[in-house]
């Protein structure tokens, strides 16, 4: 890095006098224009990416928190639409926010929503595609989640809190101490987040990890022995988020 580039980077970080060789003292405060532009753009990007976190903190508090994150985390690339990948873990490490220990989970769900929105357009396999396979082939087939459908699991419920915050409601902010698996999927031009029944979650989880449909069905039965597999499979296909790959595809 040239001396000028180095000095400018230091000036952005707060040491305005680093630019003394190139800028007269009375002009140096104008470096703040660059510093402020960068901070504003990064805060705006975080606010767009993390609407539930912003709603939970309130606008002024969110701006302070986002500014602190942005100061230490310049984007890895110039695309701001996915800025904030480390925000959830960073929130988890902030002592001042420890009483709001559900903020990181809100951030994880916010960020997943954004990832799903911009994910690749791979189409789900229609139900006819599954129906065309013999029972033997079907049980050995694997069906991965398409890129615009993702699972996320929490140890305590989160969806009702997330939805209430986005709706601007102060109610329903209690998390219940029971695990919750959510399916986040793109529908049309938006993103739908839905809570999965435990057997459906077990089925999708095996699919997501690359297991066969037989293994996914077994996981669903292990989770809920009375599961009607035909009904479950029909429900899963209705969600249009699996892409079928037969053994032939894998060769």
């Amino acid at each position: 890095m040239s001396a000028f580039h180095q000095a400018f980077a230091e000036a952005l970080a707060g040491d305005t006098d680093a630019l003394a060789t190139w800028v007269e003292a009375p002009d140096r405060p104008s470096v703040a224009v660059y510093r402020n532009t960068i901070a504003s753009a990064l805060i705006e990007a975080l606010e767009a990416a993390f609407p539930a976190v912003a709603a939970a903190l309130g606008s002024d508090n969110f701006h302070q928190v986002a500014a602190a994150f942005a100061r230490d985390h310049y984007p890895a690339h110039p695309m701001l639409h996915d800025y904030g990948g480390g925000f959830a873990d960073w929130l988890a490490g902030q002592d001042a926010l420890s009483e709001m220990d559900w903020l990181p989970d809100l951030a994880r769900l916010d960020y997943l929503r954004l990832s799903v929105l911009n994910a690749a357009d791979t189409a789900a396999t229609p139900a006819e595609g599954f129906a065309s396979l013999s029972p033997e082939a079907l049980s050995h087939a694997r069906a991965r989640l398409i890129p615009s459908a993702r699972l996320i699991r929490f140890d305590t419920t989160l969806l009702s809190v997330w939805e209430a915050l986005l709706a601007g409601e102060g109610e329903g902010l209690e998390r219940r101490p029971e695990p919750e698996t959510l399916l986040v999927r793109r529908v049309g031009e938006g993103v739908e987040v839905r809570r999965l029944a435990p057997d459906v979650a077990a089925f999708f989880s095996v699919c997501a990890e690359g297991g066969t449909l037989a293994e996914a069905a077994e996981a669903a039965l292990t989770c809920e022995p009375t599961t009607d597999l035909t009904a479950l499979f029909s429900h899963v296909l209705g969600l249009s988020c699996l892409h079928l790959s037969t053994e032939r595809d894998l060769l």
Partner: protein
Amino acid sequence: MTIGAGLGLKPQHYAEATGDRRPGLWFEVHPENYMVEGGPRLAALERVRAEHPLSLHGVGLSLGGPDPLDPAHLKRFRALIDRFAPFAVSEHLAWSRFEGHSVPDLLPVLRTSSELQRIAERIDATQTALGRALLIENPSHYLNLRGHDYDETDFLSELVRRTGCGLLVDLNNVFVSARNIGIDPLIWLHAIPAQAVGEIHLAGHSEDPVRGAQLLIDSHDRPVDAGVWALLDVALDLWGPRPVLIERDGEVPAYVELIAERERAQSVLQRERVAA
């Protein structure tokens, strides 16, 4: 189709932009906002592009920066060019990437002989990677830097001569810089090689909250200033008709309000002029 006056495309205006058939209308986007795998954003741009000419105006190549050019970013940029076939592709005489990170701003370059050579090589490499000639935009200036070997217009002219690039002249940036660092905007415009100008930008600016009118900010959050409109007349007298763009990034108004500003630019473009 004749390229007249255009608008910076905002997501809230996708539907109205797609359906607006007025002659000469075109749109411009930052490619960085469309470097996604899929989804509604790209689909909306496809719909707009099906009806209108499009320009890609980069903000992330960091042509004047210390880090090597990012091959992954160039590849993403090239993919958008191949997909959307823009009539113009532009970037800034600025930098925004250092130590492996990017910042959302356009930092000033030191216009020395060595930087001229280095930036020309980077523009050349970028044009090769993108398969297109670039238009290079003059940024706004907030600091009166010491140590330049070249005036900005001479530096830009040399880049044109050495790389075959064109120029995107942002008249709001000229206006803002004139106020902030004391250049003469008319001398600046006269020193630009007319044949190199491929596009003109217009935008609004604001006063610094602390220093007021002594320091103008290229904020893009209000209508184009009267002084910038006056520069457009001068520029078109000098260079003849060129694609003109209205940029708005903050306090974005309804489409109907923005298109009214675009109509003013279109009427200025259509005014009869004596050849310079």
